[in-house]
């Protein structure tokens, strides 16, 4: 067990108690999955995608349709529902990536390619939204996909665990999240993860020492789409419906905001960003209908003063308190503007 996995485990246990309600805690874990995907893509792939909402939405529709119409030995199983959503998100991201990643190019200097990627994924999010809006027969259009049942966890052909109780479903989502975190934590510490860090640090040099930059990026993008799709499927059976808002552009923005808010220095940032965003949204929306304004200001402050997000603020505080020369953790913002780190270079 690494510190990252332990932190997630502790948070997963504490959240139902700390959060105002179990469903809110569940929502945090579901979105943490999508944020982890975006986190991986931004922090390790060096790519910002505004299309994660499309993969989330596709996963949600896939999961919802499966729960509604799936039957026979492969029907009515929460595990298959989640795996299906993951697959749909991953395949969609791979297809988009085949076109969009090429635009980024390998060894190119400047950010032209990354901007092209961002715009292409944004376009994909728009297309996905309008497709869902128009395909009323499949998605329910503006009304959404209604009356989605919550399938039980089935093993060996028989329903074993009923997920209707809020805490039971929370435990299921927590299991999925912990599995994802354990896999991602292993990935980022592996040889392949080191390669991703090298590509993020200096893409031109990474290509020049022999890394196939485009292939690594496509893999990360596929993985991030899979995580978004997985979250989407969980969201569908969590709500019992798939609202059209599951696939709108706001959904993509929300995932990006949660990622940036948390920071990409550590996988823990994804959890910090998601939890603080959803809890703040929950608290503020009861007080003031224009609450996103507050979040907007918060994001601006983060971008200007703490590019590493909440994670770097937390790490900075810990480092400041620790005696002696603290080791550097994670990656500073691209321009190195983490003013909170002692001994930050000029």
């Amino acid at each position, binding site marked *: 067990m690494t510190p990252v996995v332990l932190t997630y485990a502790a948070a997963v246990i504490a959240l139902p108690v700390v959060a105002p309600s179990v469903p809110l805690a569940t929502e945090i874990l579901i979105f943490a999955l999508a944020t982890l995907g975006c986190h991986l893509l931004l922090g390790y792939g060096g790519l910002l995608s505004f299309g994660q909402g499309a993969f989330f939405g596709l996963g949600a529709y896939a999961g919802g349709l499966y729960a509604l119409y799936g039957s026979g030995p492969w029907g009515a199983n929460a595990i298959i529902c989640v795996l299906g959503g993951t697959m749909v998100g991953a395949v969609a991201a791979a297809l988009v990536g085949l076109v969009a990643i090429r635009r980024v190019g390998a060894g190119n200097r400047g950010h032209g390619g990354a901007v092209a990627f961002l715009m292409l994924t944004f376009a994909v999010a728009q297309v996905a939204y309008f497709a869902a809006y128009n395909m009323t027969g499949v998605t329910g259009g503006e009304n959404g996909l209604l009356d989605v049942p919550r399938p039980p966890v089935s093993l060996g052909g028989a329903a074993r665990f009923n997920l209707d109780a809020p805490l039971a479903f929370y435990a299921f989502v927590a299991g999925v999240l912990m599995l994802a975190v354990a896999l991602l934590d292993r990935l980022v510490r592996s040889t392949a993860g080191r*390669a991703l860090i090298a590509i993020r*640090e*200096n893409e031109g*040099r990474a290509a020049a020492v022999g890394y196939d930059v485009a292939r690594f990026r496509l893999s990360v993008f596929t993985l991030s789409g899979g995580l978004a799709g997985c979250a989407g499927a969980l969201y569908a059976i969590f709500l019992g419906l798939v609202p059209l808002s599951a696939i709108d552009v706001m959904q993509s923005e929300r995932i990006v905001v949660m990622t940036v808010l948390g920071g990409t220095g550590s996988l823990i940032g994804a959890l910090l960003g998601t939890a603080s965003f959803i809890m703040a949204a929950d608290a503020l929306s009861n007080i003031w209908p224009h609450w996103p304004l507050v979040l907007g200001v918060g994001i601006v402050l983060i971008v200007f003063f703490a590019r590493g997000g909440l994670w770097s603020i937390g790490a900075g505080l810990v480092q400041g308190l620790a005696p002696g020369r603290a080791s550097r953790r994670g990656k500073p913002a691209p321009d190195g503007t983490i003013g909170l780190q002692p001994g930050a270079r000029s």
Partner: protein
Amino acid sequence: MSLPADMPVPVPPPLDVRGLTKSFGGFRAVDGVSLTVRANEIHALIGPNGAGKSSLIGCLAGALRADAGTIALYGADVTRLPLHRRVRKGLARSFQITSIFQEMTVEDNVRSAVAAVHDWTWAEALMPASRHGDVNAQAEAILARLGLGHRRAALAAELSHGEQRRLELGLALASGGSMLLLDEPTAGMGVDDIRGMTALIDGLRQTCSLLLVEHNMGLVLGISDRITVLRQGAVIASGTPDEIRRNETVKAAYLGRKAGDHAQR
């Protein structure tokens, strides 16, 4: 094949370039360049600023796509191969402007470069990086060769300029390639550092063939086996250091303008 037994089989040269051309808009940066790097030789590429040396290196390494001409690596045509595939065929480069993984340790810099050309299975690639002893051992050997062993735990960004230039060369060596393209390895180095770097490059001849872009004439004339001179993208002379020193075209085009050339830099 029915070659006579006593006739030596011709071994293709490490690098054979024929009629290479590269234009940017209407400007021909590389204009029909042909040159051959023989096995275990240090082949210097010189020419005034803007002669097309770095563009040529870019085309050879694969960062730029040539408009015309062919590049053969050990007899195999690599003209259309993307750069990361050329590395696996034994072609490695260093950059004129230091290009290292600044926020990684010196050790991880070299390890990443060594790992890049390994053929990993999925299971191996997903194993913790610390468990790959062979990669770490290779990286260690390269660090020792560079004289950077004592700095292994330092961040690359914290190294002195001279040390960074050595790491830059080390990343090229780490791929295990035997055809090296070195773009001004001594750029910006102090006198003492240049001496060490020259010895390092001279020693590489044992295992590698080198194409060396260099402005330092003392170094070029001292360690090169052959020299090719570029001007305005085209080869104007090629030969041993003595031949180049005596060549009238080169004197007029390059050496004569050396003072002005340095003023530009």
